[in-house]
């Protein structure tokens, strides 16, 4: 099986380039992450981020044959050869497939990804009905892999100002939470030309999310909330 893998060493290379690798024995059901580990065994100067190997940690997002996905959830059998593996687009490359995610986390922190409660805290937990809990389905599962945000053209053009689909999905996760009391503040912070309204419903985010989440729909729900707030 033929691979073309992005290599970049900031000390010696001016630009990233693709390097050819060949693997001969491919067991059925092998995932791309395992293949990259074998490539690493062949050439130990190569590096990439990964950890859990089962789509939980979100650390091995990469651009595989042109679209973003998690290497550990991508079976080699679904890919046409040569398999071209690059780092996720729009992020500064640190080395090989490893990118600097600071910008991404900055936007995540900026949406205040925690419950904000103004009432005095109860003695026990903050309770929530099962129905209200259900409203968080499709939102809380996000593993912050960044596949969506780094596939979003609006994020490529304005990475410093546009929050990006991952952060906006999380913004809605807290807006939708019956226990959160900062709806107004959250909505106000997202208004304006950049933070949310750079989204033009291109839906790259939704098409690549490895957890099957729908950031585009969450963004639409935020707009609905804003509209209600306005009237």
């Amino acid at each position, binding site marked *: 099986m033929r691979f073309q893998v992005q290599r970049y060493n900031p000390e010696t290379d001016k630009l990233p380039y693709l390097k050819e690798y060949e693997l001969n024995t491919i067991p059925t059901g092998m995932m791309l992450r395992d293949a990259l580990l074998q490539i690493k065994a062949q050439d130990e100067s190569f590096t990439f981020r990964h950890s859990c190997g089962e789509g939980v940690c979100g650390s091995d997002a990469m651009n595989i044959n042109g679209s973003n996905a998690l290497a550990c959830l991508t079976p080699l059998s679904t890919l046409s050869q040569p398999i071209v593996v690059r780092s996720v687009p729009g992020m500064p490359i640190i080395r090989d497939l490893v990118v600097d995610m600071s910008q991404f986390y900055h936007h995540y922190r900026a949406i205040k990804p925690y419950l904000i409660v103004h009432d005095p805290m109860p003695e026990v937990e903050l309770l929530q009905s099962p129905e209200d809990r259900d409203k968080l389905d499709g939102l809380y599962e996000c593993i912050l892999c960044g596949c969506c945000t780094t596939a979003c053209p609006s994020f490529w053009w304005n990475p410093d100002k546009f929050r990006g689909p991952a952060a906006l999905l999380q913004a809605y996760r807290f807006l939708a939470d019956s226990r959160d009391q900062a709806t107004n503040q959250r909505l106000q912070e997202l208004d304006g*030309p950049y933070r949310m*309204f750079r989204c033009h419903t291109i839906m790259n985010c939704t098409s690549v999310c490895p957890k099957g989440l729908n950031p585009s729909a969450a963004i639409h729900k935020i707009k609905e909330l804003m509209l209600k707030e306005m009237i």
Partner: protein
Amino acid sequence: MSWRAHGMRAWLLQRLSALYMLLFAISFLLYIAPNLPITYEYWSDLFTRPSIAVATLVFFAALLYHAWIGIRDIIVDYIHDTTLRFTLWVLVTLFLIGLGIWVALIVLSVVAV
């Protein structure tokens, strides 16, 4: 740079203007459909009616406003140099205002008061 309508306001007004254009286009077509094929007399008589003239003027206002927001979105997406952005923005605004004045002059020149 100041953005008089931005964020939610611009987004909403862009959709409302689209809605008006759609409704206008459909009702205008339905309105003239019984009189097809259109003669010059019918067409020029149509625009002497103040109600048609007003609806048409609102249509063009909606169209130009819709275009204004759309072009501004493109500029904000792709053009990051402040001077270039501002220059383009002023040119586009003046151009659209010019078109608006031109349209208004034409529509008002035939309407019977």
